[in-house]
């Protein structure tokens, strides 16, 4: 099949000449979108042109590295699916496929379609953990956790930290990402001990990084490749309110 790529090219963070470039490509419908980009890059290399930088690693939808806005939707046309699992059969013959990087102030573009998401790591280091030293844990079955509770915690723990929620949010808010971790740990007994400190510090860090606030548009939930529910945001809000009124 023949497609036309329209790709954002940017040479470094402050590139004044950044903009879209068009590339025609003869692809196979069974290729993944990233394999089509591999093919395009191979052609560009053979022609002595600069290939397109994009982020990817596991290519099986779990590492969270891939991060393309495909035709105006973070991670592209298929719901609950990462960019790396989009195949060319999702597109029409002759279609123009527009590729942009995640756009948010806290995610500056490094090159082409690659952005810096280290803000997420800084938020996690502010409290996305249970403070337990190796060797200090009681027996794993010492605290029973109801099966539905464990499953609910898992639903939030499934976050892959890709940043699509930020990319999709009209406000570039990171509330779904932060909420997923806060909810995961607030639901489990092991995480409850530090819940007050955790939510305050993580939200403060989120604000410092420059993410926007939540306006409840639900765009994050719609594009999340792991289908993390907006409940994460409700629980994050609840945890923060709780932290403001309850003394530990």
């Amino acid at each position, binding site marked *: 099949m023949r497609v036309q790529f329209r790709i954002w090219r940017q040479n470094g963070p402050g590139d004044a000449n950044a903009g879209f470039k068009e590339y025609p490509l003869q692809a196979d419908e069974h290729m993944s979108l990233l394999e089509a980009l591999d093919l395009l890059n191979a052609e560009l290399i053979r022609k002595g042109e600069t290939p397109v930088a994009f982020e990817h690693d596991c290519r099986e939808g779990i590492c969270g590295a891939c991060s393309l806005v495909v035709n105006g939707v973070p991670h592209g046309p298929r719901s609950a699916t990462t960019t790396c699992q989009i195949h060319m059969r999702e597109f029409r013959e002759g279609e123009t496929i527009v590729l942009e990087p995640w756009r948010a*102030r806290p995610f500056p573009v490094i090159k082409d379609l690659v952005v810096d998401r280290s803000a997420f790591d800084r938020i996690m280091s502010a409290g996305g953990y249970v403070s337990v030293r190796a060797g200090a844990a009681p027996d794993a079955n010492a605290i029973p956790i109801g099966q539905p509770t464990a499953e609910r915690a898992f639903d939030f723990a499934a976050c892959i930290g890709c940043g699509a929620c930020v990319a999709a949010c009209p406000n570039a808010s990171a509330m779904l990402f932060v909420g997923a971790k806060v909810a995961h740990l607030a639901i489990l007994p092991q995480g409850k001990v530090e819940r007050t400190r955790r939510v305050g510090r993580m939200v403060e860090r989120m604000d410092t990084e420059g993410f926007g606030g939540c306006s409840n*548009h639900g*765009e994050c939930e719609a594009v999340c490749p792991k289908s993390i529910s907006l409940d994460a945001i409700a629980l994050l809000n*609840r945890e923060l309110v709780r932290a403001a009124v309850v003394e530990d």
Partner: protein
Amino acid sequence: MTTDILRTTIAAKVTMALSGAGLVLFALAHMAGHLQVFGGREVYNHYAETLQGLGAIKWAVRAGLLGILLVHVRAGVLLSQRNRAARPQAYALRRLQRTTTHGRAMLLTGVAFLAFILYHLAHFTLGWVHPQFFHAVDSLGRPDVYGNFVRSFQHPLITITYLGASLAVAMHATHATSSLLRTLGLSHGRFRRACEAAGPVVGVALLAGFACVPLACLLRLIQP
């Protein structure tokens, strides 16, 4: 506590939600008051006189409402400035998946409604719009609020203005109600559907409740 929770954006959102909740409740109460116009001149003028007779309580409520409104607007302005700053470069192409027109128009409907409030105050509280109707009295010598009300809305332009404002407030409250329930941490798990339904219910109620009065006057279903 090492962090100042009250300075976070979520705290600002909670402020917005709480003040918004107050405003939604006021809007519903206000709407219920207006619906008494269908009870006729006697009922309505009595209601108006009772409200006017509250004296200090009236002023306290007015001051409170003004305060809530200012808090709401201030938080809204700060948050939307922040939200805009969070994405300095817009997407060339962005296909939104989930958001609604009223969700996207919050700032617009908010500002429009704010302008309307000023007009509304000038109209019914200060009497600048139709002084001749405003200063009329009824047979018992009370201010004829009913007459002012009904005559005003027989004027198509005024009715259209009010219909527009009803739509704006309904749109605003539709998104706001569901949104504030999430911001207050209530909308999750088995409560989520109810919370998400609450917005449209409140919105439709406000639209119907507010719009039916001027429409009834315009269509001469209510006579002065």
